[in-house]
């Protein structure tokens, strides 16, 4: 066992136990314990919702909805199961539901954002341009492909874990990831050629 593994074990095990305790207490109706669960997981959930939805306002709403669902269904959670996998499953579903509700609103907003960005194209840095490009590329993907590629490439889950979270088969997820990566590459190429006005259909 390497030193890093030893350190990881020493540090992560009490944290995991702590989270498990908080989850049990929260399932019994302890709101303070649930607050601690939220503190431990809020950044991961917010990052995921932001990547899935592409804007901060929707990400906040989705995160709130995720925690409400977590509290509601905590009684169904099997404590032997990986909590983060379960949490990401709820997150993906909450993002899907919110995206369905706000399809027209999101389209208008992103069009406005693109317009604003075009006006200040010269002022933005390359990094910001790349972020905007990735955001648009992700927004152009179908929901299932987006969820698969976010879980696999941005959240760092394995294909099998992503399949479990998405309640799909690894083969299907692998295919979705493959298609999504191909589209992202084409989107990047177009974006580089035509500037940020280029969109993928």
């Amino acid at each position, binding site marked *: 066992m390497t030193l890093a593994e030893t350190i990881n074990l020493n540090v992560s095990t009490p944290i995991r136990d702590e989270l498990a305790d908080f989850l049990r207490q929260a399932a019994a109706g302890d709101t303070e314990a*649930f607050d601690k669960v939220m503190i431990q997981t809020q950044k991961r959930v917010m990052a995921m919702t932001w990547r899935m939805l592409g804007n901060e306002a929707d990400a906040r709403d989705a995160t709130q909805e995720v925690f409400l669902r977590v509290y509601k269904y905590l009684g169904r959670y099997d404590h032997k199961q990986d909590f983060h996998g379960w949490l990401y499953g709820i997150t993906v579903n909450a993002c899907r539901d919110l995206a369905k509700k706000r399809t027209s609103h999101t389209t208008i907003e992103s069009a406005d954002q693109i317009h604003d960005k075009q006006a200040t194209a010269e002022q933005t840095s390359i990094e910001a341009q790349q972020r905007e*490009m*990735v955001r648009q590329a992700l927004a152009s993907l179908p929901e299932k492909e987006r969820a698969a590629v976010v879980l696999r*490439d*941005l959240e760092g889950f394995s294909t099998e874990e992503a399949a479990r979270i998405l309640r799909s088969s690894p083969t299907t997820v692998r295919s979705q990831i*493959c298609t999504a990566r191909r589209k992202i590459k084409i989107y990047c190429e177009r974006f580089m050629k035509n500037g940020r006005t280029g969109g993928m259909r």
Partner: protein
Amino acid sequence: MNCQWIEQILPLHLSDDVDASETARVVSHLGTCADCARLENEYRQAMAIFRGYEPPVMDDAVYANLRLRVLSEITVAPKPSVFSNLVYLFRLQYRWALALVLLFAITIFVVNRPGRTNNELTNDGSIPVDLAATVRASDQQAPESPANHLVKIPGQPAGLSEKRYRRATAKAPDTKRWGGHVAKRRPQLIKDKLSSPANDDVAILPSNHMNETQPVLRVEMQTKDPNIRIIWFSKHPK
């Protein structure tokens, strides 16, 4: 090796999502094909940009506000009940199992319901002992045959049976009109006939068989053929 195949598999090769044997083939091909190597490079660049897509750092106040809203909604909303968890435990597979059990029970009930069973018959088709005794008793005290009740009709030889008398006196239109209720109608017809002035000399028909209040023994026997049922009426044995 086909470059088209490499192009198909390359997005998965980037994250080692292909078999070891396929990885070896791809690597060997990329070493020899400049176009595919360039394509792989483009993929890697695109994925590097994509993986650098980090969400903006948010202030702690944003998270605190978010938690506050969640907690306020939780305290307002009722706690998840034990019943809802029980309902969740009643998963789809259990529902199917219960539905199958219910279906089986209903089928058994329909097949064996009392109205369809041959209560009067044993399995070999013979009459059960109790019923046989009843039938024998009723045989011993069998009601008088209608043939014993003779009616004298003017212009006809004496000794006409009730049945023949009915045939002689009943009118065809009445029979048709009353259809299945002929049996009830006929006593009245006979009485009308008998009370008419033209039939003063007709003997009175015994009313034993016309009295509907008299208890009647009814024995039913179901044959093996479900469409055939033997119904036997008799005066109730006293």
